[in-house]
């Protein structure tokens, strides 16, 4: 699988570090336990398009939001995470 970094161009995925789902909303500190439980542990884990965070740690070191199909590894979109997260 190869990812087209918006800053560095197309690179092999071994240059990137994977974190996980991109659109988790961090709750307020005083939010109830359920909200924190959902944020820390619960995942949609879709079979299909998935917005996820990758860091180009062997390149520009920027965090990216990659939209990838988890069934085929086809990549539909890559954007710098600054401003790209919902």
């Amino acid at each position: 699988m190869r990812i087209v970094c918006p800053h560095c161009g197309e690179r092999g995925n071994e240059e990137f570090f994977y974190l996980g789902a991109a659109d988790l909303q961090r709750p307020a500190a005083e939010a109830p336990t359920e909200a924190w439980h959902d944020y820390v542990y619960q995942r949609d884990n879709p079979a299909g398009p998935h917005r996820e965070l990758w860091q180009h740690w062997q390149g520009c070191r920027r965090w990216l939001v990659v939209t990838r199909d988890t069934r085929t590894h086809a990549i539909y979109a890559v954007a710098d995470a600054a401003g790209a997260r919902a």
Partner: protein
Amino acid sequence: MTYSLFTLAREALRGHSGWRPAWRDAAPKPDYDVLIVGGGGHGLASAYYLAKEHGITNVAVLEKSYIGSGNAGRNTTIIRSNYLLPGNERFYEKSMQLWEGLEQDLNYNAMVSQRGVLNLFHSDAQRDQYARRGNAMRLHGVDAELLDAAAVRAMYPFLDDANARFPIRGGLLQRRGGTARHDAVVWGYARGADVRGVDIVQNCEVLGIDVANGRVTGVQTSRGPIRAQKIGLVCAGNSSRVAAMAGLRLPIESHVLQAFVSEGIKPLIDGVITFGVGHFYVSQSDKGGLVFGGDIDGYNSYAQRGSLPVVEDVMEGGMALMPMIGRLRVLRQWGGVMDMSMDGSPIIDRTPVEGLYLNAGWCYGGFKATPASGWCFAHTIAKDAAHHINAAMRLDRFATGALLDERGAGATPNLH
């Protein structure tokens, strides 16, 4: 039909014309007491123990493909009970005890071979960690031996124990660990369940779960609707997708794990060896191929195939541990989809939906757990409560904080 030396001799004399299929390829009935969703080893074992231990025989196992076509046919066949945490260790030791009596219980040759599992360590700190784990095992009555470097060298003289960066300082050995024949486990449980009245329904994909007033009433499948009092989900790899049909969101990500087998060679490795630095483990099948694997690919995937960087990483691990395998050719390589749970341990529990039970989150260690997983899940379904043995494997432990984090890696599924 009971398998024995007598039946073998009888069939040999009459041209093997009397063998019958080991189980019926059943068509689904409209109504069951219990439905098991997922016809892998764990699902079939669950159905088997429901019938055998609890007398619940109006049961169907629904499999979207053919039985054993998923991870039951993709694992590296290792069995062991060398865990640290009490909530895990009592469970995996139950599994080991069931393995030890499995063939007599099932009247089926599962080729259980207690050839020993050796975890190598390469530093003083790692030695301390393994000594602690070995002590925890012995406190649970499980066998564990801490070997020094000389003892490891005597067992496996071909390992690169003088590696400048990662010399082998010793290993933690569980002699009762070993391997079993994965397909035979599936077939043995299928046969044992079938003879007790369980319907094994293949090519029957669950497309929806019917819930009314907070209680399950049945499923919609590719072969029509089926009603049931209780439903057990045993579809690791796809747990999130199936549980979502009942409105549940799980603490699980699906990841791909690869495995490899080399061309067949003469007997070389008589046990199971795990490398303590890179992630690499190896054993030798009875056909002679070296069976080995390493890390998961590390990003969410439902594709049953792996990526090349991890292939390279596994090969490097193998070469670092035993350089002589460099001239072996890899015969096959494949991938399976794992439920990676948020603390690296499985879930066997009830769910917030009445009558719906969950068996999930096996990460890359599900095969060894097959007997105890089925045994505990059957108990949980039949009694509507967990057994002491799986009492720690709760679904709500992520909310209560009672995690089972063997590795201490936190809520990062790709690091467990």
